[in-house]
């Protein structure tokens, strides 16, 4: 299949992954709060209507207003935002997932609709309804919200571990993939914990007497109890990861290990405070501490999502699509015909470049590198390669997947690779007005391109992990 070209936008000094990651973390946080919040409200309603905790009734409506204002609005819109941002970052990735899973996405939409209807019905009419009717509406809301997670979790976890789908192409093989269950259960526990922490904050913002606040905080703290399962679920998740992904997060990549550490550390502190402090030692919690714990939960969410995104490298859809939206089976052809040849979109700012070779390099950068690297911002390519001399750049880029196993193989011609090297060197030299064409001399051209070609051939067209697996 030929490559489909889309216009590529420059995010300036921001890495594209930061844009989608930032929005994704915010969305996951609010969406998980909405799910846990629904179950927590149902729990409080049941405790109130059975006279096990009459104080719970005082809290329900205020919390629901908070849930609606924060979660219904920002949760729903950032969900759509995730879709649009995914298109901005990698249209090929979202295109493939829509093609594969559109009916499951449509199923998720039916649950989302139920969630909105049941949620609004409970919010608007809850105070006027009988206790049992209100409880049913809350349960419907919570169930629908959790089912939304169920369906989206399958699609997202497919990105990391497509499992038997790679052999069978079957929908359910992809959906119920190896990380589906540990991921779903882990997220479910996280939903309950987030809801409990926000409840503690909301209780502290209320004007209730101290003893009632204490009672409500303790009721909410029970929702953090399943955090005891988190270590087991985490180990389960890590154990079913592909070996290379497991290696990244357990020391192979310092950044990913650090983010995993943040997620684990923040979760341990939250669980320790809630389970030991509030439930066992019968301590209470004030607004400031509740806020800090909510922020720690946000940090844990951010760390977890970063690890989930990063563990897929060098793929955006494991073994199907590389991070730069090139399919493994396209690499060989693109090395022959070039990745820039079919690109119909002109190079922006071409007038500022000194020669045709750097223009070719800038186009190669746009198509192959700009998804993760910037020119002069976060994770900038000139910055990362500043200490390499020209030959090192040529050889390292040609054998990229060996240099860093989480990088995809270079998918362009030797001319494009040389253009990229010259483009990077030109930036590193301070973008001078004049820059020599390194291939101007015919003899040098032949020799240099042959060297690059040999290096590319030695590296092969497959990702490192494929080659390693084949050797094993």
């Amino acid at each position: 299949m030929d490559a489909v070209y889309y216009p590529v936008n420059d995010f300036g000094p921001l890495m594209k992954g930061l844009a989608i990651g930032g929005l994704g973390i915010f969305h996951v946080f609010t969406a998980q709060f909405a799910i846990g919040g629904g179950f927590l409200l149902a729990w409080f309603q049941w405790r109130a209507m059975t006279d096990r905790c009459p104080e719970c009734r005082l809290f329900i409506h205020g919390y629901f207003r908070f849930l609606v204002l924060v979660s219904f609005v920002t949760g729903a819109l950032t969900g759509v935002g995730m879709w649009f941002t995914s298109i901005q970052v990698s249209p090929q990735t979202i295109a493939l997932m829509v093609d594969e899973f559109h009916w499951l996405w449509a199923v998720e939409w039916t649950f989302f609709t139920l969630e909105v209807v049941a949620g609004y019905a409970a919010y608007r009419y809850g105070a006027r309804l009988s206790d049992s009717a209100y409880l049913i509406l809350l349960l419907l809301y919570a169930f629908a919200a959790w089912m939304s997670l169920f369906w989206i979790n399958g699609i997202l976890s497919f990105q990391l571990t497509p499992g038997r789908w790679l052999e069978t192409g079957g929908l359910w093989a992809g959906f119920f993939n190896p990380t589906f269950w540990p991921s779903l259960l882990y997220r479910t526990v996280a939903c309950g914990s987030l809801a409990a922490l926000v409840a503690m904050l909301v209780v502290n913002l209320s004007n209730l007497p101290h003893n009632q606040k204490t009672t409500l905080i303790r009721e909410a703290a029970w929702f953090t109890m399943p955090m005891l399962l988190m270590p087991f679920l985490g180990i389960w998740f890590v154990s079913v990861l592909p070996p290379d992904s497991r290696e990244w997060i357990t020391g192979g990549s310092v950044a990913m290990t650090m983010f995993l550490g943040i997620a684990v550390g923040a979760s341990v502190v939250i669980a320790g405070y809630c389970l030991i402090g509030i439930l066992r030692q019968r301590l209470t919690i004030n607004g400031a501490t509740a806020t800090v714990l909510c922020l720690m939960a946000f940090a844990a969410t951010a760390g977890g999502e970063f690890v989930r995104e990063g563990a897929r490298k060098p793929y955006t859809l494991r073994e199907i699509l590389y991070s730069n939206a090139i399919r493994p089976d396209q690499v060989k052809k693109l090395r022959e015909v070039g990745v820039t040849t079919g690109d119909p979109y002109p190079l922006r700012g071409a007038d500022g470049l000194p020669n045709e070779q750097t223009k070719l390099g800038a186009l190669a950068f746009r198509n192959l590198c700009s998804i993760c690297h910037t020119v002069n911002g976060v994770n900038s390519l000139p910055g990362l390669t500043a200490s390499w001399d020209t030959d090192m750049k040529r050889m390292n880029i040609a054998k990229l997947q060996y240099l860093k196993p989480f990088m995809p193989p270079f998918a362009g011609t030797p001319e494009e690779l040389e253009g990229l090297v010259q483009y990077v060197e030109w930036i590193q030299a301070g973008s001078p007005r004049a820059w020599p064409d390194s291939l101007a001399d015919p003899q040098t051209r032949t020799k240099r391109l042959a060297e690059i070609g040999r290096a590319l051939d030695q590296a092969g067209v497959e990702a490192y992990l494929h080659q390693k697996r084949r050797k094993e």
Partner: protein
Amino acid sequence: MEAPFPLGLPLATAFYLVFYLFTLVIHVVFMNYVLAGTLFIAYRGLFSRAPSPAGDITLDWMPLMLSGAITAAIAPLLFLQILYKQEFYTANLLLFHRWMSILPVLIVGFYSLYLLKSPGITSRWLRAGLSLTPFACVAFTGYSWTENHLLSVRPEGEWAEFYKTQSMWYAEPALWPRLMMWAVGAVPTLCCVLAWQLWYRDESVGPGMATLALAGLAGAGLAAGWYFEVADEIVRPALFGPFAFGYLVTAGIGVALQSLGWIMIARERQASLRWLLLISVGLTLTLLGMTVCREAIRITTLGLARFESYFGRHDAALGKSGFFWFLFFFALNAGLIAYAFYLVRTQQKSKPNG
């Protein structure tokens, strides 16, 4: 294109187009209510302080209706990506920040609606400013959608030219007439839904609303004429060919039924169930007809060869399983939604909680 829609199209393309248009009609009902309703809220906030049941209902229901509009937009958005993936994605990418800005803008619109409902906002000037905000946000979103749609159907060469300019605003002569046709056409939808809401609450639907609805129908007709004038070379073959002509007539019949219903309400000075039903049937026909006509214009603009080149992809998408699960859960959740309505209607208690 030689037979009435959806006949003559390959099965997969017809299948996804029918789903797309069906779900789009649902979205349009919410969207029209929100667009015209926020304008009504703005008008009342700026110029009128007289008590009005219609004004109260619109303000009270608007956050839910905006939520409904966003929720209902997801399904057609999904099918759009099956049908016209490259076009939709490319237009999104070309408009970049401008396109993405509809999300924070809608969040601002949403919260301004909640603030408007809050009794804490007492300053007249603040309320006036706030009342304008939801409409400004929704109108901006509507403008962006129209702009995105028009850009999405341009040839690839024009996309490349647009990319080179680095502009994030796209304009062509058809943009404003097309936008006005849909925006003014939103007024009759608001009037119809609002009339049902008033009727349900035993409030009167006066001749004022009938006049407004008739003015909306006339205004949409004028805007349609303007659009035809500007984009005649595309619109004429699209609408007067066998593919869409029947739907154009259907839309026209819908307008006639709506007009008749509103005229009778104006004459009788009250809304009866009979006329409301007639108006609703008319509105349904108009929206259905217009959405098919809109699609015919899109396909004609793309060109038959380009449209036919997608058929293989539609066929491949149809080969993916999951459709029957969708039907199952659609039915299940429709039943649960009906049950939620049933609970609200029948399970009210005699005295309030706690």
